[in-house]
């Protein structure tokens, strides 16, 4: 108890210095947490994937489509319990800055495979009945202020022209990591409009972007994937089937270089503040050489001096760390707002909090290490001489 009071008194001796160090720590710890949250946001799609869903795409790449008649053949594969399909639409709402995902889907089967998109029965029926209808996630609707019944015009990049959809429902995500920033509309509307357009490329008619395959038992994922791919080997459009998780991970790994950079940078900020903190502790120790020598004269051992310094360093680091952690939440909220639709989910995870605390601890310990070692070895006579 006495030690704690001594630590507190010591820490407050140079108020300005302690406050400045705290500011540095708070900035560093909250920036570290924010960067980790940013990386997590990248992986949100992976986290939200279900182990009972497989994705079948064209083996060449996602930009190649599969014929519609594959649907019946996949459905007949042993172990497949549900099937739907989706096409990436890639439309622009007013300007490119309003980016969000739009999929043309087979509505009834798709909603059955994605129970985490929660729609009221009335809205579901309204969507299924209206071929030009669309449903969107809650966050997206809030962002653009859409209400059920609104017209949403999108400018197609892959499918040329202006496409207008009537909003028939707004879905809520069942889990915190469910993507609430998508627009889903009828695949039939897409393919029939393409068919009617003059000069339509025949490759875009009845073409499916990806098949989503529901399986009853997640343990059979590898086996069923293999069965599907064998079915279409050496055909005009060979397929590649993988779990939804692997499919989502392939998007993440595309921007891996950027992710690695962000992670490296989030460690650099910790090192920066470690240098600042170590500097603070070194200066503090240097100023108190005489005191430590006096303590030694009074009979305290070198371990006590080490405890004093390490304790003070830890006290400041933890205080800064806790304030930083608390500030991370409002900051993440602001950044989540600012990046808009870029990241479907932007939430601080528990692991991030633990790592932030750990970082603060490490900073405290490392910063005290060098001065504590030096001070514990300082020779009493020369220490006392510094007073005079």
């Amino acid at each position, binding site marked *: 108890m006495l030690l704690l009071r001594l630590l507190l008194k010591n820490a407050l001796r140079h108020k300005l210095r302690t406050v400045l160090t705290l500011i540095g720590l708070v*900035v560093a710890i909250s920036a570290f947490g924010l960067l980790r949250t940013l990386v997590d946001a990248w992986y949100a799609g992976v986290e939200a994937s279900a182990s009972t869903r497989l994705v079948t795409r064209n083996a060449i790449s996602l*930009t190649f489509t599969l014929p519609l008649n594959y649907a019946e053949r996949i459905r007949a594969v042993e172990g497949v319990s549900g099937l739907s399909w989706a096409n990436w639409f890639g439309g622009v709402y007013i300007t490119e800055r309003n980016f969000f995902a739009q999929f043309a889907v087979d509505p009834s089967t798709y909603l059955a495979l994605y129970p985490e998109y929660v729609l009221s029965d009335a809205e579901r029926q309204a969507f299924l009945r209206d071929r030009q209808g669309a449903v969107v996630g809650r966050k997206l609707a809030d962002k653009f202020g859409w209400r059920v019944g609104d017209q949403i015009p999108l400018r197609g*990049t892959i499918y040329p022209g202006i496409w207008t959809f009537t909003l028939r429902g707004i879905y809520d995500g069942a889990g915190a990591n469910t993507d609430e920033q998508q627009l889903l509309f009828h695949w039939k509307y897409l393919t029939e409009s393409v068919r009617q357009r003059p*000069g339509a490329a025949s490759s875009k008619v009845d073409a499916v972007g990806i098949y989503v395959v529901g399986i009853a038992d997640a343990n059979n994922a590898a086996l069923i994937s293999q069965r599907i791919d064998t079915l279409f080997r050496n055909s005009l459009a060979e397929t590649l089937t993988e779990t939804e998780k692997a499919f989502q991970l392939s998007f993440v790994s595309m921007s891996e270089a950027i992710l690695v950079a962000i992670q490296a940078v989030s460690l*650099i900020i910790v090192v920066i503040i470690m240098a600042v903190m170590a500097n603070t502790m070194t200066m503090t120790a240097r100023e108190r050489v005489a005191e430590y020598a006096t303590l030694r004269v009074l009979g305290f051992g070198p371990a006590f001096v080490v405890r004093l310094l390490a304790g003070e360093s830890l006290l400041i680091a933890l205080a800064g760390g806790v304030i930083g952690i608390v500030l991370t939440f409002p900051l993440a909220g602001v950044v989540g707002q600012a990046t808009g639709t870029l990241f479907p989910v932007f939430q601080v995870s528990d692991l991030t909090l633990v790592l932030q605390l750990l970082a603060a601890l490490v900073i405290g310990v490392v910063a005290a290490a060098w001065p504590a070692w030096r001070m514990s070895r300082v020779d009493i006579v020369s220490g006392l001489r510094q007073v005079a």
Partner: protein
Amino acid sequence: MKAVPLSYIVRNLWVRRVTTMLTALGMALVVYVFSTVLMMSEGIRATLVATGQSDNVVVLRKGAGAEINSGIDRAQAGVVHSLPGIAADALGRRLVSSEPVALNNLPKRGSGKPSNVTVRGASEVGLELRPQVRLAQGRMFRPGTSEIVTGRAIADGFAGAGLGETLRFGGREWTVVGVLDAGRSGFDSEIWGDSEQMMQAFRREAFSSIVFRLVDAGDFERTRAAIESDPRLTLEAKPEIRFYAEQSEALATFISILGSVLSVIFSIGAIVGAMITMFAAVAQRVGEIGTLRALGFRRGAVLVAFLAEALVLSLVGGVAGLAAASLMQTVNISTTNFQTFSELAFRFTMTPVIAAWTLLFALCMGLLGGFIPAWRAARLSIVDCLRAA
């Protein structure tokens, strides 16, 4: 007004080596991050700008934005091929090339992680249109065969893409017969094969883009008007340089905004570090300050002396950070460009402008961190100072 000699300032930093080093280290790291980010976005820009030629024109389907979204059927291609104003080479061939472009998902060498690689159906004329592209190894693909050439970044980075190896896509085996050196342009990240063979393999009926060279680059507006007013064509034309600049815009902007925001946040840490150091420097030297003032140095001179000390400190950090960042120039990295959805290899690129900005940034940190302590030093009264000593 007499100024405090510079040697006094520098020696003060030297006396407290550990503190100076730690503070400079913090600044160096911030500067390193700031500089690398600028180098990264400059690298992406430089790569894609080098990809375009000033007198080339790219034609895409209206509103497509990127080659993979675009589609130009053979009839439309025929109309574009017969436009007036297209240059011819020494053999009298018109310098116009219709090219199918596809994305191919290939595994990387080593990690085996898949990434999208641009596959372009090219021709001899297509090569002639890009003078920056040269063969580094092997030979060019022969028309009408399943032979391909790969860009240098692809040959190094992807499994099966090296000289003499084979790749399987579009239902057949393709032999790599040559490796291209595209002079650090975007073509280093592409695979080229015979245009007609690619169309068959990918079952395409439409080209993705048409590239042609104008006799006179000043004719661009007239040519564009001719293309856009033709009712048979739903196409748009862009100078190649602008086309590729637009492709790099989003990624380069994303990186530079993210990086700048980070640097500013990080710099708060470093500024605080400098402030702590300078406050301590002032506190330790109250007696010295009094002596200086008693010797006749004015308040202004003391202010300048401490400010200069902070600036020298930040300069040390800035130069160290800049030196570390310049080492990054040897590193090649690649990432997926969101706009084209395909792999793009590039290099961190240092320019004098970036170096100047970086040092300025470092000095600003020193100025912000040093001003308040220096101000306080200058405000001390002579008598108090001397008494404290």
